């Protein structure tokens, strides 16, 4: 059972690495575990809780169901079998229902019934007050714990006042923490439920078993993974779902980009990169029109100021040229050159006649004058050169101020844009400028300023025309963008969705692997954990079935989701896979009990009791024998309370000499219910002893030995009863009580010492104690019972039995 001791989380983690589960799948499983872990803690019934610590002490009922005035069913806390008999309608089931209702707040028998059924819960004769109370003993609680539910007059079933009293203080039922174990181990089983255990919805049984096996973590993890997978699959499918709508939008859109987008995502493989580019693209590729519009918007003209400045500069330059009109720079330079050459000649031929004209002597005075003239003439030439250079520069500036007419003005710009005006204005401008600049510097006078104003006017009309055209182009471009933008956004959004969808489908695939792996692991773990339960079930069935031709094989939890169920491997006459439908009602009930008992008596359950309402009903006599054996073997370690409407079970127990306490519930008129003891192990021993004593045909010695043995049995039974009642009621741990009983069981004196004085160490005081308790009769009975088996006294057997009875009564007081 090493598998059971490891926590589910450890098993899962270990198996993940053993199975070499791929990284990404394993991390999904671990994530699911982390997500589910906090809740799963409750399901992992740790072994620390220990077995059976809560026992029933009494059930009191007043004004509820078949019971009118208050009636109480007293039970001996601790292991043992109690059979409560009563005719149908005697009110015995009211006790069973009250016990269940008080502890769980509900009753399985009524759960699915109609309102009419539920309304009958108050007693017909004594509907008020209505109260139920269950007294329990608990490990570690000195004194009984009492759980009560009562109803005010007219209150509905669900609105009971519940309270828990333990150790003299009130606690809430929730604090007890019993809700979950009550659900898990269900120590209550009604007749109705007995059949439903097998024939009910298969998923219910599955869930109940699953929960008890402490496998909630696995269920929660699977649920978490399944949810995740569902959403991942939805995410993966989203782009495909939205694609038709997007394609319809694209088809309706005139833009070239829409065509390109259709091409990118219309096929089986989506080109998301292309789609992203299209979503963001300003223009459609190959859209000439947009290009032209953009060229139009790119046209720039100089400012009017710079044009007028250029014109002013040209005018000024021309004015300067005109001012120097008389002094031709070339003549001046040539003359300066001539004079320079003459001056050089004069330096070597000073005083000679001018070689050019021969009339004048080139003397020093001439040389001085010539030098002046040369400087003068050279300056004049430079000035004229500068003026004409400035004019040239001004002309060039003006000419370059406005670029050549762009070709786009000759293009077809569509219906809303007409470049003709701008084009004409441009031509006009060009010709005006040409007219102005082509005119050579006028020989005389000034530049006619009409020309400058014409150029200016041409520029203004050009500027106006270009501005108008450009703004039309801009508007057109904006319109186009506005028409594309929403679709572009749609494309971008869809592209993102598609990108996520790809990731999601990878995730969904991994999740599927994780779920498959987890399911396989769950199957393994749960069937391993189920094995001990299944073994007990098989044993119970084996005892109950009594030669039935139905064999119960391994029990497994199978399937998942809505198909989950408990698989009973039932073979009928050796034919496997036979349906449960071939089983008789009695067999189904027996099988139900076989499934119920292992669960209700699970080691982890805090409840030491099991309450079964009428398991005998549909069973045939042979199964009742089996039932008696099963119940009394369970009763060795548990408190078993069985309600039954007939005498078959008590009879079987009597015949098989299985120890049991039998109580009879009878109902008088007006719902007055009484409980009285019919027989218990002590009484049965005494009855048998009396029968033996009366059998005079036997030799006296034999009778005495037999009677002494039976009397000893009666005293021991009384002691066990006393010790369990007292110690469990004080909160002593069940295991400790059973251990001390086991140790004392080898000596009658130890047994009585334990019951009477609380410890075997005081066994020596027993005779004296007995004498003071009930006189010599008690002491004698003890002595005869103790020694009689080995050394029969030929005394008065009848007297011996009566004394023994008195002793048992005194012990139990």
């Amino acid at each position, binding site marked *: 059972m090493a598998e059971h001791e490891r926590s589910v989380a450890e098993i899962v983690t270990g198996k993940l690495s053993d199975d070499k589960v791929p990284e990404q799948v394993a991390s999904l499983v671990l994530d699911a575990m982390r997500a589910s872990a906090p809740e799963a803690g409750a399901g992992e019934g740790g072994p620390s809780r220990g077995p059976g610590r809560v026992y029933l002490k009494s059930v009191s009922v007043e004004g509820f169901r078949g019971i009118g005035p208050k009636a109480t069913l007293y039970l001996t806390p601790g292991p043992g079998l109690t059979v409560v008999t009563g005719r149908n309608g005697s009110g015995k089931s009211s006790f069973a229902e009250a016990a269940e209702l008080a502890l769980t707040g509900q009753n399985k028998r009524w759960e699915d019934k109609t309102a009419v059924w539920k309304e009958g819960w108050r007693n017909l004769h004594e509907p008020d007050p209505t109260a139920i109370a269950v007294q329990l003993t608990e490990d570690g609680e000195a004194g009984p714990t009492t759980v009560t539910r009562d109803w005010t007059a007219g209150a509905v079933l669900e609105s009971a006042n519940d309270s828990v009293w333990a150790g003299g203080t009130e606690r809430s039922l929730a604090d007890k923490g019993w809700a979950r174990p009550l659900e898990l181990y269900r120590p209550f089983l009604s007749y109705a439920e007995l059949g439903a255990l097998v024939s009910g919805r298969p998923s219910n049984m599955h869930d109940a078993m699953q929960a008890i096996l402490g496998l909630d973590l696995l269920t929660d993890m699977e649920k978490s993974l399944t949810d995740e997978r569902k959403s991942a699959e939805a995410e993966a499918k989203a782009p495909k779902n939205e694609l038709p709508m997007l394609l319809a939008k694209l088809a309706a859109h005139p833009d070239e980009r829409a065509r390109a987008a259709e091409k990118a995502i219309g096929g089986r493989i989506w080109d998301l990169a292309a789609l992203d580019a299209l979503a963001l693209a300003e223009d459609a590729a190959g859209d000439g029109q947009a290009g032209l519009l953009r060229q139009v918007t790119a046209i720039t003209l100089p400012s009017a100021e710079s044009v007028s400045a250029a014109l002013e500069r040209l005018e000024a330059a021309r004015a300067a040229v005109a001012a120097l009109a008389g002094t031709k720079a070339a003549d001046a330079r040539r003359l300066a050159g001539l004079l320079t050459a003459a001056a050089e000649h004069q330096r070597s031929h000073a005083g000679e006649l001018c070689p050019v004209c021969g009339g004048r002597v080139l003397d020093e005075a001439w040389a001085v004058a010539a030098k002046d003239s040369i400087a003068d003439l050279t300056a004049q030439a430079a000035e004229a050169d500068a003026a004409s250079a400035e004019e040239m520069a001004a002309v060039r500036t003006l000419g370059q101020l406005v670029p050549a007419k762009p070709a786009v003005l000759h293009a077809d710009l569509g219906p809303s844009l007409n470049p003709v005006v701008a084009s004409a204005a441009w031509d006009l401008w060009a010709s005006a400028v040409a007219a102005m600049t082509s005119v050579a510097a006028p020989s005389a006078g000034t530049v006619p300023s009409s020309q400058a104003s014409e150029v200016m006017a041409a520029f203004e009309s050009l500027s106006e025309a270009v501005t108008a055209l450009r703004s039309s182009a801009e508007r057109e471009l904006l319109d186009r963008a506005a028409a594309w933008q929403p679709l572009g956004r749609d494309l971008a959004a869809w592209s993102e969705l598609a990108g996520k969808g790809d990731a999601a489908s990878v995730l969904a695939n991994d999740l599927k692997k994780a779920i498959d792996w987890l399911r396989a692991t769950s199957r393994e773990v749960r069937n391993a954990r189920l094995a001990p339960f299944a073994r007990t079930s098989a044993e119970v069935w084996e005892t109950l079935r009594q*030669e039935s031709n139905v064999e119960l094989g391994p029990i497994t939890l199978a399937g998942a989701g809505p198909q989950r169920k408990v698989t009973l491997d039932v073979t009928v006459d050796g034919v496997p896979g036979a349906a449960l439908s071939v089983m008789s009602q009695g067999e189904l009930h027996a099988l139900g009990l076989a499934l119920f008992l292992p669960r209700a008596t699970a080691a982890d359950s805090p409840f030491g009791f099991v309450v079964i309402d009428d398991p005998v009903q549909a069973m045939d006599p042979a199964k009742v024998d089996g039932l008696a054996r099963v119940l009394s073997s369970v009763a060795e370690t548990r408190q078993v309370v069985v309600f039954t409407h007939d005498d078959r079970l008590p009879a*079987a127990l009597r*015949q098989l000499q299985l120890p049991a306490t039998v109580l009879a519930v009878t109902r008088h008129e007006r719902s007055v219910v009484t409980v009285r003891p019919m027989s218990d192990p002590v009484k049965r021993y005494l009855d048998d002893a009396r029968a*033996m004593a009366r059998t005079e045909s036997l*030799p006296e010695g034999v009778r005495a030995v037999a009677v002494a*043995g*039976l009397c000893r049995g009666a005293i021991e039974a009384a002691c066990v009863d006393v010790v369990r009642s007292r110690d469990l009621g004080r909160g002593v741990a069940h295991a400790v009580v059973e251990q001390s009983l086991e140790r004392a069981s080898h000596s009658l004196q130890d047994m009585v010492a334990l019951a009477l004085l609380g410890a075997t160490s005081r066994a020596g005081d027993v005779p004296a104690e007995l004498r003071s308790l009930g006189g010599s009769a008690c002491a004698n009975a003890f002595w005869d019972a103790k020694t009689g088996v080995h050394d029969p006294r030929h005394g008065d057997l009848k007297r011996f039995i009566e004394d023994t009875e008195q002793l048992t009564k005194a012990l139990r007081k």
Partner: protein
Amino acid sequence: MSPSDPSARSVTPEELLAAADQLLTSPVSGVGAQWPRACALLIRLALEMTLDRFWVGVLPSAAKCGMRQQLLLLPLYTTDRPAAVGLAREAWLGLAGAAHHHAYELAPTATELRTWHREVTKLVSLLAADWPRRS
């Protein structure tokens, strides 16, 4: 069905059980629908006779007692064979009711009869050592 001196009987428990077995395995003419009760009766007689023969050797007076007393005494004399008491009790529990015609009680089933048959057969083998041998 009062117990009587076994030596006066000409029939043994084994013979009774063989007859019961025959009833169980094949229909016998003349018994008709009552065969389960007849079969139960045979097994019950076999049980009673088995105990009677046992007591002859160890405590002759016990054979004259009722079955309740016999079953109470049996463990005192079979401490070396503890299984015997259980077998006798279980078989008796079923057979005591089954052999009688109760108004509302149904006849025992074949599987029940087989169980009792098996139990009594086992008991015979456990107690046979103490039987007086007929010469």
